[in-house]
């Protein structure tokens, strides 16, 4: 018997120490249990239905490569009867995507899946290189992230696919939970913990990109295990860092997550579960209503923050910004009433009455009109320019595009949409390539 026998088969040498429960497994048993857990996530949450066409948002990176590999395996093993395709976005950064797109092309052959690659230039009229030329290297990750989210939805709509799966893992979710908790943004916290981000059918056009369902089958998978799975299965993936944000991890919430994991590996899933539990307490949350009523902001507005990764980690320095922000709220924090104040605020300003129990089906088909919010932040609507689901009159992508097209450098996402209204005509002309919709959200 080897010095470190596998806890499952008791014969082979253990090579993996699972972060979630400290169990020691051999390579074969680890691969089996990793796949079995993803299968459980898919079936328990009813993510797929037979005959469904599913686009895998593929970057060539570890997460989406593992996702594609596992989904292919499970689809064959358990006969899901789903059709899997790969969808890649080319941001238009010279040299940056060359290798990763080559990886995706190889993956397409390895997994025998059709592949579509769409460029930012096709979708927005701007490559990231052109964006950087205009706004400089600082802050351009915002553009990249905001554009990317919509890009997958638009790409899927073009292909007639209604479901996009992404490689977001437990570390990604834990990171967004922490960030939204620190921001005291409970509605957003509830949306980002949701395994399915169902976008309401606000549009009459069935092929509109607002009707795309998003899900994260790897939501409960540790990044560590994803990397180990890729390693032990010898998967062909590509690693890179965004050449425009070399400092991306310094002082980030991501770094905090990794430090927590080093001290107590179960911390990551604990944070994810806590986020879900807190989400249930949020009035009008996804958990409560199946995503139809509280989903005022498209999840992508906060999910995909940077371009260093397909999974939109937060950019560096965000923890420092947070500390600054928290220092300003110190008084509120000191009397220990912060949470109560926040939840009362939510109850006062929104008409949703009770946090519904864990049921996830709820008022699934309710349109946004039935859930109009009184505050700007919570108003469900569509971008008046491009039709994308947005909490503002003009979605972030269109605001950013407006800034770009007005030749106004260093535009931030906080820019008010009043500006957008003033330049409606101008925007119309620049968003011509987009699938415009003028359905009022309210």
């Amino acid at each position, binding site marked *: 018997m080897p010095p*470190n026998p596998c806890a499952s088969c008791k014969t082979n040498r253990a090579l993996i120490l699972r972060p979630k429960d400290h169990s020691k497994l051999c390579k074969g048993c680890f691969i089996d249990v990793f796949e079995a857990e993803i299968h459980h996530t898919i079936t328990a949450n009813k993510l797929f239905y037979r005959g469904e066409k599913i686009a895998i948002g593929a970057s060539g990176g570890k997460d*989406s490569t593992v996702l594609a590999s596992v989904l292919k395996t499970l689809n064959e093993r358990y006969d899901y009867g789903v059709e899997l395709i790969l969808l890649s976005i080319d941001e238009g950064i010279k040299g940056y995507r060359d290798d990763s797109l080559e*990886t995706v092309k190889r993956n397409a052959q390895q997994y025998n899946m059709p592949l579509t690659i769409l460029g930012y230039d096709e979708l927005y009229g701007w490559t990231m290189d052109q964006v950087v030329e205009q706004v400089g290297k600082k802050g351009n990750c915002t553009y990249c992230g905001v554009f990317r989210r919509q890009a997958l939805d638009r790409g899927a709509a073009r292909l007639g696919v209604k479901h996009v799966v992404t490689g977001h893992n437990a570390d990604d979710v834990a990171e967004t939970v922490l960030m939204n908790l620190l921001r005291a943004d409970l509605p957003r916290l509830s949306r980002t913990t949701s395994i399915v981000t169902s976008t309401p059918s606000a549009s009459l056009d069935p092929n509109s990109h607002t009707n795309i369902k998003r899900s994260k089958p790897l939501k409960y998978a540790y990044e560590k295990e994803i*990397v180990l799975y890729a*390693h032990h299965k010898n998967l062909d993936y590509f*690693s890179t860092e965004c050449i425009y944000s070399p400092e991306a991890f310094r002082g980030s919430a991501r770094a905090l997550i990794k430090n927590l994991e080093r001290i107590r590996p179960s911390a990551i899933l604990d944070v994810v579960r806590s986020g879900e539990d807190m989400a249930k307490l949020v009035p009008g949350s996804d958990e409560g209503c199946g995503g139809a009523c509280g989903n005022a902001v498209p999840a992508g507005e906060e999910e995909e923050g940077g371009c260093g*990764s397909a999974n939109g980690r937060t950019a560096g320095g965000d923890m420092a910004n947070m500390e600054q922000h928290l220092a300003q709220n110190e008084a509120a924090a000191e009397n220990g009433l912060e949470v109560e104040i926040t939840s009362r605020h939510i109850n006062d300003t929104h008409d949703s009455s009770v946090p519904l129990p864990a049921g996830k089906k709820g008022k699934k088909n309710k349109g946004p009109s039935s859930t109009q919010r009184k505050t700007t932040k919570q108003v469900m609507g569509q971008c008046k320019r491009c039709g994308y689901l947005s909490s503002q009159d003009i979605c972030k992508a269109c605001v950013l595009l407006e800034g770009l097209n007005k030749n106004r450098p260093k535009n931030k996402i906080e820019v008010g949409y009043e500006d957008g209204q003033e330049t409606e005509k101008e925007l119309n002309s620049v968003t011509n390539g987009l699938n415009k919709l003028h359905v009022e959200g309210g």
Partner: protein
Amino acid sequence: MSKTNDDGTIPITVEFSGGLEMLFSNERKLSLAIPAKDETGNGSNIAYLVRHLCDKVMKDPRKELFVLDGTVRPGILVLINEADWELEGEDKYEIQEGDNILFVSTLHGG
């Protein structure tokens, strides 16, 4: 006990992946001969190897992307002959002749 070369070094293989190779001149696999004993005369362990890599091998100035607070940066996995270093004593593991030490970053995107 590890067998040492005549010059007091032991041959090992060190690999980098997951993006870490970018810090090591894009070398994914190195054949190294490291001193069998560390500065204090004890058998060289992973902690020593990491210092050795930083001082002697790594040309990239961004050491903090590999080492933080004196140990391998959180988010970088270490596999000793394919086994998670946590199963082998982490940085206290005493390196043996012919060992394969793999450093994999989980921090890089795609």
